[in-house]
């Protein structure tokens, strides 16, 4: 049925010139908009929170732009194309997770914090230790996520831009990093927001076109699409039932438990991702924060439904062997399908969108990490609050450059070490779910929670999560491990969430009941009244 593309395994597809031209156009347009946006960047609230006057609908789009990383776009479609059902499971975890943010976190955070996650975590605690802990965990999550995106960018070029070799890939990572630093330095949060809005619109429009195209091919019949995907998989001799669960994770009892562990981290991680939380501060009120999550849930959900069609469409029309043998393997499913459907032009558009995706996500991560360092570590811990807002923003800008440079370096290293990108993203979610979410929930809802409880929960979650990874088959004792020749792995799972998340909740409770410090009832009253009524919430900046 499917007339598959004939291409050599090591060649690129499409016309690199078109891919580069479309990507270049995106960069040009967003840079112009970023420079225009920079005219309004005067105060700290402008730089960190876009003056808090992004509308709920715009912010919903920006959240989708921030959240739908290349791992979501290329990774999920590819996982569905190759493993079928198990790829679909990822997207469900990523989506359901937003209900935690909607019901328990977004509005209350908007009402109580100013710029960072630490603002709310330290609200009724001893400031410096809690801010330090929250900043460390923010930086850890952002760095894992940044490295994943950066090395993803390097991996994409071989496929899309027709360049090969370590040096060329490294050059692309440097280019992406440099652009990201420019967006953040010049545009601040407002510029970053516009980049994310444009990218989300392009991404969703591109996915819609591909989805409709695939559906036309199968007569708008889901059953036919699924049947075709299965048939292509059978013909290719993969021996995989792409319609049933278990193709990727069902092999052994350990891999099954690993999947449950991953599922937990996905659903509990989102509401603890610092760059997601920071987006809630860019709207004028808590009601707008609610509206932005409502928009985000619909946009992200619809996008993942498109991914289901695109993934099975790639499986049916391109075929699993073509995908697995293409440069970029799993990640090449969506681009290969675009080429199959619409030739070089559609491929060029999808390739440009994939790069835009990476740029928008890394810019959001960089501004979050730099805000956390400048606002929490520099202004509160080092200078003890004795710093002007302008001084703080200056430090944030310098930090953005430093973090950009570090992530470029680590991204190139990760790329050359062949580190699995999906795994790095899963690790960022696991750290967010373990170190951040328990403390956020305790802070907002548990009257007795104390500084010691917060510290035990943040550090306990962070250390357990990263520690278990170090002693897992991801790092050693496995042919696919980072260090395949040594074996110091004693923790059997690749995803630590099932241990580290409950442990962090437990440590938060234990640290609290064992602490001598009495909870600050006045501060809790202030936090609770502000969180639910919105009194004293930071106002939008008027220009």
């Amino acid at each position: 049925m499917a007339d598959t593309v004939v291409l050599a395994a090591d060649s690129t597809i499409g016309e690199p010139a078109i891919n580069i031209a479309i990507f270049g156009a995106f960069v040009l347009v967003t840079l112009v908009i970023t420079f225009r946006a920079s005219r309004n960047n005067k105060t700290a609230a402008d730089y960190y929170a876009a003056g808090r006057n992004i509308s709920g609908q715009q912010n919903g789009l920006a959240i989708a732009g921030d959240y739908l990383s290349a791992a979501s776009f290329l990774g999920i479609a590819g996982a569905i194309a190759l493993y079928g059902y198990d790829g679909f499971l990822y997207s469900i975890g990523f989506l359901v997770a937003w209900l935690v943010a909607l019901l328990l976190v977004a509005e209350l955070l908007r009402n109580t914090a100013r710029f960072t996650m630490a603002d709310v975590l330290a609200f009724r605690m001893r400031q410096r230790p809690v801010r330090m802990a929250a900043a460390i965990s923010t930086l850890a999550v952002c760095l894992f996520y940044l490295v994943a995106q950066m090395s993803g960018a390097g991996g994409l070029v071989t496929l899309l831009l027709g360049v090969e070799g370590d040096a060329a890939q490294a050059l692309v990572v440097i280019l992406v990093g440099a652009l990201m630093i420019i967006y953040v330095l010049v545009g601040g949060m407002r510029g970053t927001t516009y980049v994310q809005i444009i990218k989300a619109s392009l991404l969703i429009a591109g996915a819609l076109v591909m989805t409709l195209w695939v559906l036309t091919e199968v007569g708008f019949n889901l059953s036919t699409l699924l049947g075709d995907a299965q048939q292509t998989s059978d013909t290719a001799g993969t021996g995989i039932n792409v319609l049933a669960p278990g193709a990727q994770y069902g092999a052994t009892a350990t891999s099954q438990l690993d999947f449950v562990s991953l599922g937990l981290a996905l659903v509990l991680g989102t509401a603890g991702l610092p760059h997601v939380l920071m987006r809630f501060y860019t709207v004028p009120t808590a009601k707008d924060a609610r509206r932005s999550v409502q928009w985000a849930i619909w946009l992200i959900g619809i996008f993942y439904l498109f991914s289901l069609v695109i993934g099975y469409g790639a499986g049916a029309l391109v075929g699993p062997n073509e995908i697995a043998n293409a440069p970029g393997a799993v990640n090449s499913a969506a681009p290969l399908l675009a080429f199959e459907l619409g030739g070089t032009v559609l491929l060029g558009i999808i390739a440009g969108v994939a790069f835009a995706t990476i740029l928008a996500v890394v810019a959001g991560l960089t501004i979050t990490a730099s805000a956390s360092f400048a606002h929490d570590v520099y202004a509160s811990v080092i200078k003890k609050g004795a710093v002007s807002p302008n001084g703080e923003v200056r430090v944030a800008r310098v930090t953005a450059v430093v973090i950009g440079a570090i992530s470029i370096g680590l991204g190139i290293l990760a790329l050359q070490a062949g580190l699995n990108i999906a795994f790095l993203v899963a690790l960022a979610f696991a750290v967010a779910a373990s170190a951040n979410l328990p403390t956020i929930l305790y802070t907002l809802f548990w009257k007795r929670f104390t500084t010691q409880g917060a510290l035990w929960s943040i550090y306990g979650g962070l250390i357990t999560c990263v520690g278990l990874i170090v002693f897992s088959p991801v790092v050693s004792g496995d042919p696919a491990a980072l260090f395949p020749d040594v074996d110091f792995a004693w923790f059997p799972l690749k995803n630590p969430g099932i241990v580290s998340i409950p442990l962090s909740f437990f440590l938060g409770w234990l640290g609290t009941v064992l602490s001598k410090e009495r909870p600050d009832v006045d501060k809790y009253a202030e936090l609770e009244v502000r969180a639910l009524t919105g009194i004293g919430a930071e106002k939008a900046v008027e220009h």
Partner: protein
Amino acid sequence: MTPPTERRMLTPEEYRQAQDSPEFTELRRRFRRFAFPMTVAFFAWYLLYVLLSTYADDFMAEKVFGDVNVGILLGLAQFVTTFLITQLYVRHAGRNTDPIADEMRDRLEHHEYARGTGAEGAPRG
């Protein structure tokens, strides 16, 4: 809403009075009555789905019509419930918590919870 004039900060006393007021107790009750059970419900439903996908793959591979099986349908049902809970929450907040929150915020801005100025049971809109 309020003019951006220089205003007196709220005192800890006022926050305590506001927190102890019956209208705040009602606001908190309405917020939690929806958010907490709904969180338990969607989390349990998601967990059930993940566990079924992991440990009951034969059941999930059962064909319902054509090539569409139980697993795909339950997965799509996760999307439907997520959209549904989102809309239900937005409606609940608009109808049941926003009016109290708006009114309390207004009264707090006018320092009506300062000691002795009718902290308890002031009439509501």
